[in-house]
């Protein structure tokens, strides 16, 4: 369980730190343990709130919004919160049904079975506020929710943190700012 692992980590920090500045390898250990404890439990996820069809549709949508989103558990995140909150659930069941209806209207099939180019055609409308009309407003609003939450899920996951290059949340012995980073910024600033 993450908590037990975290305790161990904290024990490492506390004992190492009490002796003085943290040893670099202890700090590294902390980092690795924290990362390990976060690895998903594995197995097939069973949706808690959405139907199988809704969940599969959401998963596909999340992956289109951010390639790699499934690695970040975006659909699972949304399903879990929806299972705890009827207001959230209504946004997603309503939004997914809207997508299906819109797709059926144009291409006689639901979103999940639609051809990739037909999905793109629809999402290219929904992804921008400027396309808001009486026909699209509900879909645009839903897409905004799905985008925000997919982005949140992905960048709060281990995969997303790594991709964006966040390398903190760990104990370090001494705080330093790399000179190359300072030089880089100054060179591009009005202070060059």
């Amino acid at each position, binding site marked *: 369980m993450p908590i037990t692992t975290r305790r161990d980590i*904290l024990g490492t920090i506390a004992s190492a730190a009490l002796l003085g500045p943290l040893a670099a390898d202890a700090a590294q250990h902390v980092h690795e343990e924290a990362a390990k404890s976060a690895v998903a439990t594995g197995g097939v996820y069973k949706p808690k709130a959405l139907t199988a069809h809704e969940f599969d549709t959401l998963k596909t949508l999340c992956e289109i919004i951010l390639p790699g989103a499934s690695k970040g558990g975006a659909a699972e995140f949304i399903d879990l919160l929806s299972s705890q909150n009827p207001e959230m659930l209504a946004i997603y069941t309503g939004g997914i049904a809207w997508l299906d209806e819109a797709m059926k209207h144009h291409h006689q099939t639901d979103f999940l079975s639609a051809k990739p180019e037909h999905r793109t055609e629809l999402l290219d409308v929904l992804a921008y506020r400027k396309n808001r009309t009486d026909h699209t407003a509900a879909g645009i609003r839903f897409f905004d929710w799905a*985008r925000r939450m997919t982005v949140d899920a992905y960048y709060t996951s281990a995969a997303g943190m790594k991709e964006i290059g*966040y390398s*903190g949340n760990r104990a370090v012995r001494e*705080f330093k700012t790399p000179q190359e980073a300072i030089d880089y910024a100054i060179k591009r600033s009005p202070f060059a």
Partner: protein
Amino acid sequence: MFQITRGAPVYDVVIIGSGAGGGTVTKVLADKGINVALLEAGPGLNPEKDFKMLEWPYQVPHRGAGEGGASYFGKGRAFGFFSAHAGGWQLEGEPYTVAEGSKFNWFRSRIVGGRTNHYGRISLRYADYDLKPYSRDGIGSDWPISYEDIAPYYDKAEAFIGVTGSKEGIRSAPDGVFQKCPPPRVHEVLIKKASDKLGIPCIPNRLAVITQPTNGRPACHYCGQCGRGCIPASNYSSSQVQVFPAMKTGKVTLITNAMARELITNDEGKVTAVSYVDKLTRTEKQIKCRTVMLAASCCESTRLLLNSKGKGHENGLGNSSGTVGKYLTDNTGFGLGARIPALEGMPRHNNDGMGGAHLYMPWWLWDKKTDFPRGYHIEIGGGYNMPGIGSFAGVCRQHEGYGDSLKKAIYDDFGTHVSFAGRGEMIPNKDTFCEIDPNVVDKYGIPVLRFHYKWTDAEYKQVQHMEKTFTDLIETMGGTVVKNNRPVEDKISTGGDIIHEVGAIRMGDDPKTSPLNKYCQSNDVKNVFVADAAPFVSNPDKNPTLTIVALAWRTADYLAEEMRKGNV
């Protein structure tokens, strides 16, 4: 249900509240061998279990959005799920009211350590002139003490809790006993260059974070998460740095979940006991005392005095001046941020550092003429902060779209923003105060506070000055500020938002206009003292916690000496 245990102990001092003031008094008195009881309205604290230090968002199923995604609906925990506080802007069953036409937000944290578990750790001394504002500009009132009175206690406070900083010789930001501040981050280097150009001092920050082992506490490990609470106590919280160590003396009886209701007085008008509600059983209890130290926070201490009514003190205890609840102020607040193109594409690196900025800007126009009284200091933000819920909401809104282009926009945006926040001095005014609302009680039957709050031109002009300054700083760094045409009334923080409320039981030389004397002792009831921010006479442009600690230390020393002499 009313319980008084016969033969119950009489404590030398009952301290109400375990935050910065209560924690300090507890430690100082316990070290002198004085028997104290410490009442805390919240539960106990187990840092290892309760603090979320080094937890990743993905270790929590909701990632920090809260149960049911509360934060998406504006209902998440204040300062985010991982923050160490145990409270918020509203506490269930413990309301406060706001008078018509006023706006005020009151942050309370019910837990051992109070708000010090999560606060920003900014530790700034008041300047000599801050304590004599009336003498300087004819507005407000002077403190009954001078910088020389409090300076030795700043020394003690800084040495004991540990504060970073550097000797600068700037009058508005007196030097103290400092530990080394870590070097600036890249965006801070740029900010310093901009401020140098504009003639604004930008100096190593003064944070209650230790960068060398201090009193058995290990040095900071630079994870940047002070707000989550620090398990090895490398920053200051009264719980870990004062209350827990003080308990080892055997002189401290800590009573948690104890919500003080009323101070009980005898025929001579002295306080003999504190009546409190045991929240777990909702029963009323009394604890006997020789003296009482109010440290429940500025407004809670005020509420307690006003609710302690009796023969001869129908308007509340210690309130013969009628000024308890008056002179309430918060600091002004205004923030502005922008993207800085020079930071785009910079080689990624870990810049967590201390849980706060490594530089700050003290007020620099204290000897110049401005169109508003007093001043403000500037806090700065930016860097590669750990992504969390909502971190990229701004990019999503601006970029829209999806797929690889959205990913790239987010990647390019990460770590390129800087922000400035001003914290300035508000002048006490007659329209800003708190009082008991006769119509409302909390779930324990305790009458609640009603707030009246009004900013004046003095504060509005100050905030306009902040906006101009921050715009200049951003533009000097090559950023672009989005013009904001809203009126200044919308730009200034709401009263209480900055969580620097002070002044409602002020100290002074004249008992007719001040409830407390210059030792924070009640003029009316000699065995009542106040050790939070309520005694403050003004609210300078410096975060109040360090001064709470220093003043509480001074008050505790005075009380111990008075007890030794048999005066209380």
